[in-house]
């Protein structure tokens, strides 16, 4: 037994609120690992991902939920993120082990923080900060995009008709939460 132990303190742990009929919370234990496809080894990498997850990488700007609940998000031709629930700080090893070296993996869990939003007013609130067109004909369920909101880089995912997951840099977590919270407050009619 080691003399010292480390407690996790995710920047937005416990954040949860409801404003303008929208529920806003920071999902717990969300792990994130980047998958980079080796140049010239793309086919092998894609096969390894399919073998590991039972789902192939979707096209760029889309995400897909694998059998085990992992969400695979394709960000560019050679880069994807795997999002899954996982509490311990070994997410990268877990993914790397499944992919047998066919993909370059980097742990991104602590690089990002996530905020989930749910409720019919969500789009109206996001209109205040998100330059992407979130109309359902343009940004449908499972679509994903990296963009900028209030000077912060954000990865936005549509996870349901009125459900979104937003990821941004962990160091600016408080400013990120503030930006989203103010957007909800500003569209709140009451």
């Amino acid at each position, binding site marked *: *037994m*080691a*003399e*010292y*132990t*480390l*407690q*996790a*303190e*995710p*920047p937005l742990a416990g954040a949860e609120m409801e404003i303008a009929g929208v529920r806003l919370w920071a999902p717990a234990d969300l792990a994130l690992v*980047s998958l*980079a496809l*080796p*140049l*010239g*080894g793309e086919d092998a990498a894609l096969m390894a991902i399919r073998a590991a997850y039972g789902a192939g990488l979707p096209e760029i700007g889309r995400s897909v939920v694998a059998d085990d609940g992992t969400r695979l998000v394709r960000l560019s031709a*050679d*880069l994807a993120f795997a999002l899954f629930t996982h509490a311990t*700080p*070994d997410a990268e090893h877990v993914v790397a082990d499944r992919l047998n070296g066919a993909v*370059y993996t*980097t*742990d*991104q*869990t*602590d*690089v*990002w923080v996530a905020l989930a939003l749910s409720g019919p007013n969500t789009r109206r609130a996001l*209109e*205040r*900060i*998100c*330059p*992407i*067109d979130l*109309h359902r004909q*343009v940004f449908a369920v499972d679509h994903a995009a990296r963009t900028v909101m*209030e*000077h*912060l880089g954000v990865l936005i995912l549509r996870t349901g008709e009125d459900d979104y997951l937003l990821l941004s*840099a*962990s*160091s*600016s*977590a*408080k*400013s*990120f939460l*503030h*930006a989203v919270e*103010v*957007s909800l407050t*500003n569209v709140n009619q009451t």
Partner: protein
Amino acid sequence: MSQVNRIKGGLIDPATEITFTFNGKAMQGHPGDTLASALLANGQRLVGRSFKYHRPRGIFTAGSEEPNALVELRKGATQEPNTRATVTELFDGLEARSQNHRGSLEFDLMAVTDLLSPFLSAGFYYKTFMWPRAFWEKLYEPAIRASAGLGRLSMEEDPDRYDKGYLHCDLLVIGAGPAGLMAARTAARAGARVILADEDFVMGGRLNAETLEVDGKPGSDWAVGVVAELAAMANVRLMPRSTVYGAYDHGVYGVLERCTDHLATSGGKPRQVLWRVYARHAVLAAGATERPVAFGNNDRPGVMLAGAVRAYANRWGVAPGRRVAVFTNNDDGWRTAADLVAKGIEVPAVIDTRDAPAVCDVPGARHVRGAAVMDTRGRKGLRQITLTDGQMIDADCLAVSGGWNPNLHLTCHQRGRPEWRDDLAAFVPGRELPPGMVVAGAANGAMTLAAALREGCAVAETLGYADKSDLPRAEDEPRDCAPVWHVPQSRARAWLDLQNDVTVKDVKQAHQEGFRAVEHLKRYTTLGMATDQGKTANIPALAIMAECTGRTIPETGTTIFRPPYTPVPIGALAGRARGRAFRPYRLTPSHRWAEAHGATFVEVGNWLRAQWFARDGEQGWRDSVDREVLMTRGSVGICDVTTLGKIDIQGRDAGEFLNRVYCNGFATLAVGKVRYGLMLREDGIAYDDGTTARMGENHYVMTTTTANAVTVFRRLEFARQCLWPDLDVHLISTTDGWAQFAVAGPNARKLLRKVVDTEHDLSNEAFPFMGCGEVTVCGGMPARLFRISFSGELAYEVAVPARFGNAMMGVLMEAGREFDAVPYGTEALGVMRIEKGHAAGNELNGQTTAHNLGMGRMVSRKKDCIGNVLSQRPEMLRDDAVKLVGLRPVDRATGLISGSHFIGQGDAATMENDQGWMSSVAYSPSLEHSIGLGFLKRGDARMGEILRAVSPVHGREMEVEVVSAHFIDPDGERLRG
């Protein structure tokens, strides 16, 4: 009854009374009123003073083109200068004050300038106030400034909040008049995503101001029906109180929505929202603006645009006067006469410049054919007009119509130049419109109601939004116009720009002095430069310049318009990004620990970093910093260095890639080793430095400086994608992912031994200087350990996943308790790096080469790397180039000054004798005197020399000795120990 001029009808709610004040006097109005309509209803004709001559001014228009009726609205911190009364929606408790007068509005002491007007003609100030030279700033200019300007800022922080947003649509319709409503309805019925924006608070445009019918019912009723239909459609967004103020590239429009300006307080809601609308197409249906005719003393309160006069009567139930004469050069002016008479207002005469029969029957009015108004009387309000035939007619209001100009402003925001149409005697939108924009209705020169409805529908169809329903029925009202720009018989001054006091004579003088280009005219006379941007003045002035030059109006030029269409508050353009929310804060993983342990924080880019940790009893920051340095060098100190950029680099060609982006060699770096790397820009200047660790065969971790983390990543991606696209290299930032701590000092290893799990050998042999590896800490926590040193001490950097960083700081301090470990901040970090002679931002300032930094030999000439070739340019390698050296004061008690320049002893302090500068200084608690780093010509060859470090801006200079930059442990024994 205070509302002496209130008559029946209009789109107001007469049952509800609203109280407001003007210059402290209580007045009444109704919901639906503007401040202007309510002022007129209360008989308040004098509302302001002009800019230059302080002439009395009254309400001139009924819209956003208003030049005269500018007021200060609200009070205290929400005081809002230069607010146009004509577009200010009345609310209960509104407070407004007139502006730009000394003394009261009625008795403005500055009105004396009007008497001096012969000496204040166009550009007079360019010709005088030059003697004596010093008097300009001391006497003339302060006097001019005090009398110039209009309203006053409160000088307090704007307490309201603003927001912004993004909207996307197929079709943005600008203006909700007949053309806009038809375009919106047609497209919406065809299923398009439509946004309909109008600056007014009631949609309908001129339909609300006219008595015209659509489909057999009043136009305003028809508009209500269309708006209701649109409001019920999911694919339509209605935006009243929203001004489309700018057309930017690629279909991006700026829209200002006023959310709470019509309320007494914003109630914590955003006052205004600035929308960026991304529109595939836009229909500009902004209508037209009436223009005046210039004649003698045409600036008196009571002289108004004819369309505005009938708008006040029809829409707001207000008679702008009891006896309203009409002066027109076109058919539309007659409509004002007819509408007023129908409302029971006396119209003594219709003066038409055309020698033509009456356009319509106006009971009780004389029809004066082929004549014009040439002068007026009435000091603070119109009493009488004089016609060119000598007739004098009593009137307290004169409705003037000189024809209508299409509101084509937004068509000019990119490259569009308006084109002249003789039949309308007006400019219409040119052919080169902003891509995606079409123009409909009066804005396009379709001046009649039926034509506007037709065009609104037709443009939507041409954009591919077809709707099979019938066009509404309406008539093509008579619109004949025979242009008359000014009345040459007038002997008195005739105003063009009412706000800036530019008269016909000024235009003629500009011509006489050679200012004949339209832009010269505007700049010389200030025409069109006022808050209304010449919406009513520019075209008549242009016509008069054409007359002077003997050319046609289009030959003379055109005036184009720039954003914004109407003025936009700076607060709205800034949105939320103000105060502490100006930019996001980035916090280090141990921020909370630092807060709890007395840290003072400092902004480093967007980061907040602990600057020092004060302890009880310390007298100032220096006490804390000195202690942190001494205790670190004496035992061990801990610093959160997470802010350094971290880039995870993987790929088969990662090593080769690093070899090309660093100027020194990386091909031979072994797994488990770290190397210092210097990056050059392609121009050969030193750019960034840091360490890169090889974690595995194909896996490297690069660190960058805090300041350059983002741009280094960008440059690496450029190299990867654009320069060497077929290297297998992958980059991803992990800056925020790892909480990284420097553990420095002779007891660093002992401290870490307690934290790093025992299976990892930390001995000097197993983990030597510049070693690295993946380890576990605190019983299995994955971590990275690097044996690198910025302080010059035996030091490590240990990294754990960021969410454990706050706890890790606590653990390190706890483990270090037996060694008296201290946390140290950026100040101590800076002191130690100067003591060690490491270059940082002040030295790597984008102007220095590796040669200057004493690292010239690091630039490998045996390989290709960024910056290699251009770093070898002859003047960059000069022998007398500045070199990085250490400096110490000859009098050790003296504090060096960063930014002082080096001058030889006995030389004058001039630029010719400048030999370099001091880039960084610190008090070294280890050496107990001030030390500095600096760049000195041939510095490396001048050790021991004594120079003067001069800082004339402080009025100080001191003698300094040139020494090695490595003040501490020059042989590096400590860090290898």
